[in-house]
């Protein structure tokens, strides 16, 4: 009987390790673009859920296998080679399960984060050396030896028990959250949204520190985010502080070359700029708190069969369950001088537009009455552009933002700029948005290697594209260091707890 139990365990571990490796490698494509070479064999879509289920299954199997071996000792007789390879398997699976569990809980110290990925690579080597050598030794007989089990010998009770434990653990893991206690303040307290955070109320506020990983340009992709929140009856104030060694305000600058103006970029053509981009910070809000950014992540080049592919091969955000997720997107150049965060949301898949090269799936922008920033080129080309406007004062070329009324429409006769002159690519048509898009006031200041961002929004905006700030609302935070989409991330949602 123990042999058939072993075969069942072996079956399930093959399936779960395969699912875990493939889904994990797909997730790793976000910050390891060389893995996109194997995109064809990696799963698309909501792979975070698959990764969690398969990971939990492996964890349950590891725990049961420890019990199984203590009870039955040896099940198979192995050569020294296979004994060595099996220990390699134990090592890789053990470190993978341990690092994965700590990652899921946001408890893995940043210096050990790479362990999870390298454990997976060792596991791949183990699988190759384990299964391939057995195939070489036994040929097709290995199939019968490893997979054949008469129906009457299937240990149904054990299989059902392990399945139930896995489901219970999955449900429990899904519901794990951080908690951010929101300190109440009086409606009479004046809070200035200036990105300094020197009001005495902030000193008394409860603080939560969340480690975020895998962001481009941060030191080893890591930045810890400190979060505080205050609330009166109408509004909630947030104070975010995160480490960023460089203040990046050089947003796709326009450079004069011998043959004309060019956008300075390193990836913008594929909508994945990671060198000449502003710093940003994003907060997602949802009424639910599920794993994998509440089901809004859809990885792969074309995760939606009947919708366009993305240019970077990494994936899309969308909310396909009929509910929206709110998204506050603060941008150090494009919205900071407006004292706003761009109020966006994740919603259902947008209709693709024939005339637009970039499709954003469910990443959508709240409507606005007026006001905008626009890019300072008549038409974007990776080779050459013509600026939309030139500064009225030539000394005004180093500013990150060019004001509409401090500039004049481009004319060849006015373009007397020398080679290597630089111009801002961001034009403010007005000093702020008006309408739904302007619901979130925000101001950030960079000092000594840290951004401090102060942000406020009404608890109830009554917009169909916003999430109300209530007890139990969950948030996720991401920091961008000079990158367009390659943001840092954490796993567990942060649940807001109001004491009002």
């Amino acid at each position: 009987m123990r042999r058939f139990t072993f075969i069942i365990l072996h079956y399930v571990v093959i399936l779960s390790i395969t699912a875990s490796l493939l889904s994990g490698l797909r997730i790793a494509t976000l910050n390891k673009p060389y893995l996109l070479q194997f995109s064809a064999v990696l799963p698309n879509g909501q792979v975070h859920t698959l990764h969690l289920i398969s990971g939990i299954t492996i964890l349950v199997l590891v725990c049961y296998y420890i019990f199984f071996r203590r009870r039955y000792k040896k099940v198979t007789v192995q050569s020294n080679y296979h004994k060595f390879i099996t220990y390699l398997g134990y090592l890789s699976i053990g470190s993978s399960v341990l690092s994965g569990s700590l990652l899921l809980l946001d408890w893995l110290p940043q210096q050990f984060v790479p362990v999870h990925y390298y454990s997976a690579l060792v596991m791949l080597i183990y699988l190759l050396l384990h299964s391939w050598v057995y195939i070489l030794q036994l040929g097709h007989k290995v199939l019968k030896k490893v997979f054949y089990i008469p129906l009457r010998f299937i240990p149904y009770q054990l299989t059902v028990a392990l399945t139930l434990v896995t489901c219970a653990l999955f449900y429990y893991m899904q519901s794990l959250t951080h908690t951010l206690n929101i300190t109440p303040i009086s409606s009479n307290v004046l809070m200035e949204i200036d990105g300094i955070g020197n009001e005495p109320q902030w000193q008394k506020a409860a603080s939560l520190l969340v480690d975020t990983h895998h962001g481009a340009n941060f030191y080893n992709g890591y930045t810890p985010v400190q979060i505080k929140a205050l609330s009166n009856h109408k509004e909630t104030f947030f104070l975010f502080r995160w480490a960023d060694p460089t203040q990046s305000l050089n947003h796709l600058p326009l450079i004069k070359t011998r043959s004309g103006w060019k956008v300075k970029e390193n990836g913008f053509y594929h909508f994945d700029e990671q060198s000449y981009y502003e710093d940003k910070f994003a907060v997602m809000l949802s009424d639910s708190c599920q794993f994998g950014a509440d089901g809004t992540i859809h990885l792969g080049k074309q995760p939606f069969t009947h919708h366009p592919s993305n240019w970077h091969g990494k994936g899309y955000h969308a909310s396909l369950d009929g509910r929206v997720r709110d998204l506050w997107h603060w941008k150090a150049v494009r919205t900071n001088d407006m004292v706003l965060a761009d109020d966006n949301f994740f919603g259902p898949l947008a209709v693709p537009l024939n005339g637009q090269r970039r499709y954003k799936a469910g990443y959508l922008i709240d409507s606005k009455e007026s006001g905008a920033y626009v890019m300072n080129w008549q038409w974007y080309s990776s080779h050459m552009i013509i600026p939309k406007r030139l500064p009225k004062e030539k000394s005004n070329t180093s500013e990150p933002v060019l004001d509409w009324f401090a500039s004049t429409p481009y004319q060849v006769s006015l373009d007397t700029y020398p080679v290597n002159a630089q111009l801002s690519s961001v034009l403010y048509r007005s000093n702020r948005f008006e309408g739904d898009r302007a619901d979130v006031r925000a101001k950030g200041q960079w000092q000594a290697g840290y951004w401090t961002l102060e942000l406020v929004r009404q608890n109830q905006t009554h917009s169909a594209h916003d999430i109300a700030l209530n007890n139990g609302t969950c948030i996720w935070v991401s920091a961008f260091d000079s990158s367009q989409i390659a943001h840092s991330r954490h796993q567990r949602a942060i649940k807001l707890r109001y004491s009002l």
Partner: protein
Amino acid sequence: MITRAIISVLLVAVLLYLNVNYGGHKEIVPQHHQRFTKITAQGRQLTPWQGPWSCVLDNQLSLLWEVKTDDESIHDGYWTYSWYDQNKGHPNFGDCYFETARCDTQDLINRTNTLSLCGQTNWRLPTESELASLLQSPSRPGHVYIAHDYFINIQKGDYWSSDANTTLSQHYEHLKFGAKAVNFHKGSVIALPYRNAAFVILVSDITQTHPLSQLSSRDTPLKQ
């Protein structure tokens, strides 16, 4: 055992070759719009992801539409015009930068014809039905009721049609007559007094002999 090793190595090599050369590297190509084609100021056809463009060819109505800009030229989308046609309407009650006096629809028509936008010199105001045919549900929240990937710089407001002598009602009733306009913010057709400042998209008829009349909508993918 050696045979099995050779077979498995060959198998892995073939799989790697297929993955690298054929797996998941599908080229992203634009799709033609069923109705619209971008046209440059010189009258040249562009693919959907090319630009800039100054006109849109309407393959359904065989018309060429003016594309608005944000460059403070005569085509700037922020300029407004009162409705005026020779002796009818109300001259110079809109706002633009290109006239010393204020602006009316005839000013824009004259200037555009003088400049032969997209090679055409028969620019005019669209009829109500022509203009209303551009109405479509917004493709993004809060956007205008038009294909905004082709018709850029369209404002959330009223756009004049050529249909005049319309009887005004309600709070405009005392002004008696006006012209029809299409509101791309609400997706509706309304009657406005001639003196109102509204936006304009001009239109031009394509003759049978015009090179652009040979273009028709296609649904095959094309290379950018």
